[in-house]
Structures are given as C-alpha cells and as structure tokens.
C-alpha cells in the first residue's frame, strides 16, 4: 500500500504503479495498480520476494525503487518530481485534472493528449465532441467550430498557448485553425467566463495548452501516423526536441491529406434536385493541411521565457453540387476523375502565430506576460457567378482574380499580463488583456467591411479559503472596446428606388465604443467526503462584431440579404451554474445544471420581407436583439463494474427560448437536441494499458427550430475504440483504432453546416493512429 504525491504534497491520481519481481520458483511476476484521487494505491496477494517498483505518471519523472516484501509492508510514500518544468510551477506542474476542477467554481473539464488520441476526430473540436455539453458545427470532414451548451461562434473563446485565437469567426463554414497533434491539454470551461477571458466568453472557453516541454538533458523524437478509411485520409506529425539544463528547442511538423468523404447514400437531394453521388462520395470535399511549429526558450529558476512560432495552412473544397445552400450544376466528369483533387468552390486559410510567454517569480508574486501576433489570411474561391445586378461577366479592370469570391486578412496584436499573489487565505490574481485587430477584405462579393478593433480589459480575482471545506470566489472586470468600420461601395451599379442606377454604398464609416463591467461569484463546498458541490453566478458580455453592426450584402450561400444594425449594444448575459460530484466505491456521478438569461441576445432574424435594391430580390435577414432564456445541463454516471470493466452514461439537455422580439417563443438557431452517450469499456490493469470501448450515442429529434432551419430526426450511432501500448521492432508504440459510425447509419446532424441541404453525415470510418515516442537521456 502506498500514496503518491507531487513535490508539494498534492495527491496524484491515475498514476500507474508497476511491481515486477520473481517468486521463489524464479517465475517472473508483474502486478499493476493505479492511484485513486487521494493518490492511494494498494496491492494484495503479493508473494514474498524482491520487487522492482516503478511509478509512472504523464508529466512526471518515473520513480523507481526496489522493495523486499516480507509479510505486510509499511505504507510507502512516493514523491514524484515534475518531468517538465513548465511556465509556472505552482499552477501548471501540478495541474492535474482533479485539482483543477476542485479549485474552480465554474464547470471545468480537462482532457489530455491520451483523450485526444483515443477519440481522434477530423479536427480538434470534433475530438472534443465526446464531452457532454460540447457539440460542433461541422463542415466536411476536416473542419468544425465548437458549440458549448449550444452557444458558439463569438460566444466561445478559444485560447491557444495563452493568447486568444482570432480567426474569421462569423462563418459557420470556417473551421478552427489549430493542429490537434500539437495539443498538450485542453481545458474546457462551460459557462460565463468573461471575467477571465474578456468579451466573447459568454458560452464558455476552450483553453488549449501546449505540449509539455522536453525534460532536462534529453533529446526526444516522436512520430505520429494517422489514417482514416472514410475519406482515405493519411497524415503524419513529427516532433523533434531537446533540452540542456535551461535552454530548449522543440519543433513539430504535421501533414494531413484527405479525399472526398463518403456518406451512406447514392443520391442526395439538394432542395428537390436529385444529385447522384459517384461511389457515395461528396464531390469536392477533399482537403489538405500543413502545420509547422517551432518552440524555444529559457527556463530559469525565477524567470522563464518561451517563444512559440507556428503556421497552419488548410485548403479544402466545398461540396460542388451546392455552394452553401445554392444548388450548382457541376461538371461531374471533372469532379469524379479523382476523389483527392480540390476543385472549385474551395476555401483556404493560413494562420501564422508568434507568441512570447514570460514568467517571473518575485517574492510572493508570480507574474506572467504574453505578447502575441497572429495573422489569419482566408480566401474563398468559386467560379464567378453573376447574382442580382452583378454583370454577367467579371470585368478584368477590377484587379480581382476571377475566382476570388471573398478574402479576409486579419492581423492581431495581443498583450496579456497577470500577477498571482498569495496573501493569507487569499489567492489574488490581477490582470490586463489588450488586443488590436486590423482587418481587410477583397473579392467580388461583399459581406463585411474592412475594420479596426481595439479592446482593453482589467480584472481582479480573489479565491478565499474559508475553511477546509469551503472555497469562495469573487471577480470583477472592466473592459473598453472600440470598433472602426470603413466605407464600402459596390463595384457594379444597381437599380435604385429613385430610378436609374447607382453604385450602392453598402457600409458607411462607423465608429462605435463599448464599455462593460462584469462580475462573478462562486463557491466550492465539500460537505462530505467524496461529495463536492460547486455554484457560480456571473455576468458576461460580448461586443457586437463587425458583421452584426455593418453587414449589408447578399449571402448567396443562404439566399439571404444580411443587414447589420449599427445601433446594437454590447450583449450581456447572466448565468447560474451548479454542479454536484460524488465519487466513491467505483461510482462517479456528476450532475451540472445551469440557467442563463440574456437581456439582449444578438441574432440574425429572417424577416418576411424581400429587398430588390440592396438585397437583389433576396429575403431580408436583420440583426436584432431579443431577451433569451436558456437552461439545461449534463449528467454523467460511471461505475467501475470490476477491475477491468467500466460502464458510463452521460447525457446532455438544452432548452432555449426567445422571450421577446420577432421570434418570440422560438428557440435559438443551432439548438443541439438532447443526447445520451452510453459506453462500456474494458481496460484491464495489464502492461501496455490495453483498452476496448463501445460507445452508443442516442440523439433525440429536434423539433425546436427557427427559420431557416429544418426539423431533424433522431438517430443512434455506434463507435468502437481500442488501443494498446506495444513494442514494434524494439520501439515503443501507442496504437489506437476507432471505428466511427460502425453500422454505417444514415443520419443528419442538426448542427451541421450541410444540414439545410439535407446531406447525411459521414458513413463508417476506421481511424488508425500510431505514435512512436523516443526519448534519449544524455549525460553531460
């Protein structure tokens, strides 16, 4: 029996303890155990003899000793040292899941690299979809946007290596430019998190942490290989790193390629128009991704500085028979020649980042600062199609390439500073976040104008330990933001109401300023052993985005004329979260309901009107504000059936209703239907950590819709996952195999981008991934 803790005495859960020895007959004997949340492990029925004990935990240096068993042994206390000296020793090194969850009154889920490997989806967000309360808006097989409890787009903040990730967030056909192989850990905050993350964190935050740094005096190489059967995807990611005592360098390159994905249908119907699919492939949904990362830095005792450089590039086709909702006739011969080529229409996006993270320990203070620059350059290509009053042919005097439908160029400068200080029973955090954005547009269609945006916020956060069982939280934050939009006029003349023709001014010069004050209070209470309760109430906010204020153009992907509202105020939200967790005797039960109220939810309201001047005869969609109420929650129950088998059920439910405005009584768009995930897994405590798991996801039908959505039938899908650590050609390897949609079920996902044109989701998909980590220690 024994207990495993870190250097400051915090118990380490899920550490693997292996005892290896020989019995009296000389037969070798191995036993494995894992520590529980109190860091405790035990062995029983061990034969007397000498054993080699090894304790392993990701992120810590292996601990080894030899013990001699003679009768009942005394308790063993094992202290693991962090293998990676990360940014801040207090907050990150011992940042294992339980501690993180217990120190936070918000609802937090933390997943590590193993979770990502075992559930590897087409994109990082698709991988995270397994977590209750998380859904995605998917497009094709390689891209998706996160939805946390039904809120997405600019209502969820994604933080990458300490800096807010800024993509072109408004389009549901845009993915998130992150490399899932370069992820160390993902922290998911469900609920109002504006007080830490600023504007936009109304629905929650996804904090993507970098990979652990190399350990001192090591060189390491790791190779990942991944293959997917459905879209015949293959890819690799290679990491090379090394560290002396204090200096290190680490590089990673990822390359992925995928073909058109397949659905369980020979014909799909875009409106009533029958589109027959060649080999059940969705024409032109192939893509490729290339990501490069370089990380270097200095890790001192009092000062750390890390520089992250990365570039991700992604190019993918749009389903050729429909561009958005618009059916298109296509040259089937051209498209069906190859399932791998990327023809028009297509999108490509390049995201470059340079981030410097610095940490300084000064007496009681722990100061952290991040400086970042990122550039998101996005192009959407399509053959020129004249719509409305656009001339039938694109004049070449414009200087816009004939296939450049839209271009967005975003440059973002960020600065964050934080100071943690402990003072008696208080843990205080003070911080500043500043950001400046520069956005330019091009292409022959118009949706949003060029604009500049600056934001600055300051916050203070206090965690107060009242007693052993109660932790109180309180935070306040003040933000100021400014948005400056530039005038845009059409490049072609249109009929105007006064008669004759004119070049319409779509967006006028506009300057708006926003101030916001938000707060949050919370409580962690452990009334009994094994039971922990959390409660949190807070106010969050979101500055309207350029599109909501200044859109004035036809989105032919949706047959809509989208009109911004320059007088919108900053969106506000009040949310109450409660969570109860009970963990004992192999049971783990967690219930987390929430209630959320928006006095002014901003959304795109489809009206009954058409506009034949600015809107070229399309339906008017107007940005409007309405009062909105939402509630729901997640329930997770898992039970260890015996030493190897675990059964798990997790469910999610969400209800939203607009309480005022033109769509009073309706829900909000992209409302995820209730769903239940049932899972049975077998993971015996054997060397190699083998596991097999069967997942069955049952999703209810969604009848609560709002124009222009369609009701979606319920469905059930089965997935099978398995993995093992093995030795292949004397190299250690981690193998994972998944069969997604095992029964090749034909179903539609209510929150998919292609739902409106009735495209089914991906058919059976076998995902294979192999990981070869090699570390060598040098003696110098």
């Amino acid at each position, binding site marked *: 029996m024994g207990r495993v803790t870190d250097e400051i005495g915090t118990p380490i859960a899920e550490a693997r303890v292996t005892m290896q020895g020989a019995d009296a007959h000389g037969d070798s004997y191995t036993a494995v155990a894992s520590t529980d949340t109190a860091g405790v492990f035990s062995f029983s029925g061990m034969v007397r003899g000498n054993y080699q004990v090894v304790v392993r935990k990701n992120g810590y240096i292996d601990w080894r000793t030899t013990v001699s068993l003679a009768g009942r042994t005394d308790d063993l206390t094992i202290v693991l040292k962090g293998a990676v000296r990360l940014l801040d020793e207090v907050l990150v090194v011992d940042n294992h899941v339980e501690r993180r969850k217990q120190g936070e009154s918000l609802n937090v889920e933390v997943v590590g690299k193993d979770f990502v490997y075992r559930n590897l989806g087409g994109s990082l967000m698709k991988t995270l979809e397994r977590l209750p309360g998380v859904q995605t808006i998917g497009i094709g097989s390689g891209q998706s946007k996160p939805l946390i409890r039904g809120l997405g787009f600019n209502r969820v903040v994604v933080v990458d290596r300490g800096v807010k990730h800024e993509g072109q967030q408004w389009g549901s056909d845009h993915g998130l430019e992150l490399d899932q192989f370069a992820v160390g850990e993902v922290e998911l905050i469900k609920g109002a998190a504006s007080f830490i993350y600023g504007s936009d964190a109304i629905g929650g935050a996804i904090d993507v942490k970098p990979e652990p740094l190399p350990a001192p005096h090591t060189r390491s190489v790791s190779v990942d290989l991944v293959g997917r059967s459905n879209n015949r995807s293959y890819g690799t990611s290679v990491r090379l790193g090394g560290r002396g005592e204090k200096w290190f360098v680490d590089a990673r390159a990822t390359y992925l390629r995928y073909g058109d994905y397949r659905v369980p249908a020979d014909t799909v119907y*875009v409106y009533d128009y029958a589109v027959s699919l060649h080999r059940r492939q969705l024409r032109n949904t192939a893509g490729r991704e290339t990501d490069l990362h370089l990380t270097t830095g200095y890790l001192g005792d009092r000062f750390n500085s890390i520089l992250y450089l990365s570039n991700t590039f992604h190019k993918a086709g749009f389903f050729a028979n429909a561009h958005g909702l618009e059916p298109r006739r296509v040259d089937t011969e051209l498209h069906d020649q190859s399932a791998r080529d990327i023809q028009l229409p297509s999108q490509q996006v390049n995201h470059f980042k340079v981030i410097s993270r610095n940490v300084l320990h000064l007496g009681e203070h722990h100061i952290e600062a991040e400086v970042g620059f990122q550039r998101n350059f996005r192009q959407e290509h399509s053959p020129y199609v004249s719509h409305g009053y656009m001339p*039938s042919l694109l004049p070449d005097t414009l200087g816009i390439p004939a296939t450049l439908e839209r271009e967005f160029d975003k440059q973002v400068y960020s600065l964050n500073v934080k100071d943690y200080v402990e003072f008696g029973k208080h843990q205080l955090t003070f911080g500043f976040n500043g950001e400046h954005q520069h956005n330019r547009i091009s292409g022959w269609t118009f949706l949003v104008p060029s604009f500049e945006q600056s934001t600055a916020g300051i916050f203070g956060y206090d965690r107060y330990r009242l007693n052993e069982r109660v932790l109180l939280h309180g935070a306040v934050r003040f933000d100021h933001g400014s948005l400056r939009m530039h005038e845009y006029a059409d490049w072609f003349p249109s009929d105007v109401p006064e008669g004759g023709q004119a070049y319409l001014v779509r967006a006028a010069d506009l300057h708006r300023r926003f101030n916001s004050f938000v707060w949050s209070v919370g409580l962690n209470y452990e009334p009994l052993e094994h039971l922990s309760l959390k409660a949190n109430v807070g106010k969050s906010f979101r500055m309207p985005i350029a599109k909501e204020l200044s859109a004035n153009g036809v989105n032919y992907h949706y047959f809509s004329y989208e009109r911004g509202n320059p007088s919108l105020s900053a969106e506000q939200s009040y949310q109450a979260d409660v969570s109860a967790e009970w963990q004992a005797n192999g049971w783990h039960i967690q219930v987390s309901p929430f*209630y959320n109220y928006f006095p002014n939810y901003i959304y795109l309201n489809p009206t*009954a009107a*058409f506009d034949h001047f600015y809107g070229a*005869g399309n*339906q008017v969609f107007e940005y409007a504000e309405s009062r909105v109420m939402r*509630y729901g929650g997640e329930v997770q129950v898992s039970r260890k059936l015996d030493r190897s088998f675990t059964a798990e059920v997790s469910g999610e439910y969400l209800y939203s209703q607009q309480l005022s405005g033109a769509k009073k009584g309706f829900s909000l768009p992209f409302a995820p239907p209730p769903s239940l995930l049932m899972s049975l897994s077998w993971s015996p405590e054997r060397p190699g950590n083998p596991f097999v798991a069967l997942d069955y996801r049952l999703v209810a039908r969604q009848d609560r819709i709002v124009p222009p959505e369609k009701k979606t039938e319920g469905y059930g899908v089965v997935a099978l996952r398995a993995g093992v650590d093995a030795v292949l050609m004397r190299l250690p390897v981690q193998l994972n195999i998944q069969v997604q949609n095992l029964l090749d079920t034909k179903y539609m996902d209510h929150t998919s981008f292609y739902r409106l044109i009735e495209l089914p989701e991906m058919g059976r998909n076998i995902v294979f991934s192999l990981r070869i980590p090699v570390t060598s220690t040098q003696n110098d």
Partner: protein
Amino acid sequence: MEIMEKLQIKRIIIAFGIISLALACSKDAETVDTDYPVIDDNFTEMFPQQCGTVLRGETFVFKARFSDNVALGSFSLDVHDNFNHHSHSTEVEACDMGPVKEPKNPFKYIESFDIPGAPKAYEAEVEIAVPADIDPGDYHFMIKVTDREGWQTLRGLSVKIQ
C-alpha cells in the same frame, strides 16, 4: 454512521437529479409556427413552367399559387441568364440547354412584392415585359416566397426566351 452518510449523499443526489429533470421537462406549452410556405405544384395555370418558353418583345403574366398554414409574407421574382449553365435549378426535370455563350445584353428582372392582408392562400399575378433587344437563350426564373414568421420556400425554374 457511514451508512447514514451514504444515504444522505444518495438523497442529495436524487433530489438534485429530480430538480434538474423537473426543470428540463417543464416545457413551455407555447407553440410556434414551424411550417414553410408552399408554392403549389398542382396549380395548372402556373406560368412559366419548368422548361417553358417566353417570347421577346412581349409581355407575359407570371402566375403562381402560394399557401401557408398561418399567414403569407411576401414574394420575390428574379430572372437572369444561364448562358454559362451555372444552374441553381431546384427542379427534378432537366431541360434541353442551348450552347454555352457569352452574354451581350442579357435580360435581368428583379422585383419583390408584399402579399397584402397576410392571407393563408394567395394567387400571384405579375405582368413582366420582355424587351425585344435582349439576348435570347437559357434563363433562370427564381420564385421565392416567405411566410410572416420568415420561413422561405424557393423554386428555380429553367426557361427559354426566344
């Protein structure tokens, strides 16, 4: 003591679960309109029809019947050339197409109309004059109709102008 404690925990969890379930199930009885308006397929007087023809230098009358379960909103008509065969037809039936060609003076018509009185059914009639000097050939005739809630139904017809 331990048993008591466990019972208490179970009670707390059960109570918590019941409250959550009760909250989740207290659905509002309020019903909303989720039906799309309809462009009547069986309306025999509908004009033009898929693969139909209209003549240059003449005025034709667009005719269609719209209906909705609650109240209609408005409709919009859009005629534009399809000389490049880009096609956003929503129709099952394919038409014979002329060769791909470059437009010189293509016909373009975009209008929208309110449906007065928010009726449940409405027969639309619009006179459309086709100038004599426009390019003949393949055109698209798009009909879009909304109901009061903002549900939109659209049909894209392929027509020929001769």
